[in-house]
């Protein structure tokens, strides 16, 4: 497939090399998930595809239980697919950047659960590491919760 927006020269994207298994960052630059699999628009299986049918497009990045089925085969039930719509993607580089906050996404529910029920309750769990003038660049974008 070819990528490239804003009329830039089209760049070849290899799904295996540039999309699958890449780290996904949310709008704040916080790691959200890894691209465990890709969802394509409907391709009829076992039927003849008409000549003028539109080519399939990537509709979503999948994460979560789909990783196990990618390794061992099979398909998780639809209710357990954790989708991030392709429309949320703003940049494909050495990481994939999204325009959404992970606190609004299903894919990060385990993180939220562990935070709210375990780690956040241990004394010091919400303590923000002390800052220094040249402290970590990622801390500047974010600040604590």
């Amino acid at each position, binding site marked *: 497939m070819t990528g490239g927006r804003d009329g830039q020269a089209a760049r070849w994207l290899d799904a295996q090399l540039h999309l699958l298994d890449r780290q996904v960052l949310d709008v704040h630059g916080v790691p959200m998930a*890894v691209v465990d699999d890709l969802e394509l628009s409907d391709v009829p299986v076992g039927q003849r595809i008409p000549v003028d049918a539109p080519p399939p497009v990537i509709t979503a990045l999948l994460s979560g239980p789909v990783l196990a089925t990618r390794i061992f085969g099979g398909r998780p039930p639809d209710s357990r697919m954790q989708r991030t719509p392709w429309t949320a993607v703003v940049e494909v*580089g050495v990481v994939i950047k999204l325009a959404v906050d992970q606190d609004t996404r299903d894919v990060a529910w385990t993180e939220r659960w562990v935070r709210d029920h375990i780690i956040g309750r241990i004394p010091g769990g*919400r303590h923000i*590491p002390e800052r220094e003038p040249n402290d970590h660049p990622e801390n500047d974008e974010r600040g604590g*919760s």
Partner: protein
Amino acid sequence: MKRILGVALGILTAIGGFLDIGDMVTNAVVGSRFGLSLAWVVVVGVIGICVFAQMSGRVAAVSGRATFELIRERLGPRAAVLNLGASFMINLMTLTAEIGGVALALQLVSSVSYLLWVPFAALAVWLVIWRVKFSVMENVAGLVGLCLIGFAVALFLLNPDWGELGRQALPGASTSTEKVSTYWFYAVALFGAAMTPYEVFFFSSGAVEEGWTTKDLTRSRANVLVGFPLGGLLSLAIAGCAAVVLLPQLISVTALSQVMLPVALAGGKMLIALIILGIVAATAGAALETTLSAGYTIAQFLGWPWGKFRPPAQAARFHLLMIICLIVGIGTLMTGVDPIQVTEISVVFSAVALPLTYLPILIVANDPEYLGEHVNGHALNGIALIYLVIILAAALAAIPLLIITGAGQ
């Protein structure tokens, strides 16, 4: 002083790799049985880890990606999950052994059974991970760990016949009585210890923790070139002490106290006190390195938020995972298992983890998408390819040698 602190990450990484509790004993065993005839392995190992740690540090500084992200990305989920399993077992076994090691060192000081120290040692490790800043952690553990230089001091005080030691280190000057397979078992064990995968996991993740950028490339190189050779030198000093004192007396090393014997002979109480302090810092440092590496590898494989630069609540699964690892470690030690033997078994897992860790680092270090102009040069690639062959050979030989020699018995 600032210069020294600038390379603390390299020193701590190297101490965790070369001077963890298992390696300290292994080095003394090797010295007491083979003299310095295996010294060349340490040299080969130091060069190898320098080559690959430098690459992983450079990738982390320029692109911000830590090593296990690369492994998953370039090897795909199947091979990466194999590596993850093996690396995680190495991390878990080593962190268990190190907590036992801290406890053993405290037992030497206090005469209180090490089993009673284990929960406190684990709690201390957790508190550091939970609350202490990454830079403070690496500075303290790295600097105090330098007390192990006492082993080099001891070697000088013993005033050995340097010519004889030098002859032992020459190739072909083998010490007849041991079997060839045992010799090579220890060669593979020493090489594996020098190149343990958690060193690059920790080093690259530490570079991200400290927020290194392209400006820090010189610093990355300095960390590598100071830290790992120093670690190798100290492990040779331990072997040297054992070769001078224990080898002629035919004393076989089975425990930490025998590692200290030459030191006591050379420097008396003061040096012993210094070394014990160094051992506590080194084992605690190795415990921190392996515990954090356990968290880093799984978080990077699954894409979780990770790192000590975040409040724990913002890297919740990462912190929960490390707490579970420490609890498993305490539980394992409480069964009374010998902490030092735990590290010997982990050699088996290195066989899987070594090639699957260093190949993706080499591939990405040549990818301009990540490194732009800072990709590997031809010479570095040449050396790295030679090392991949050595790593593969060591990986293939590890398990057969372990079985044939009964773990070097």
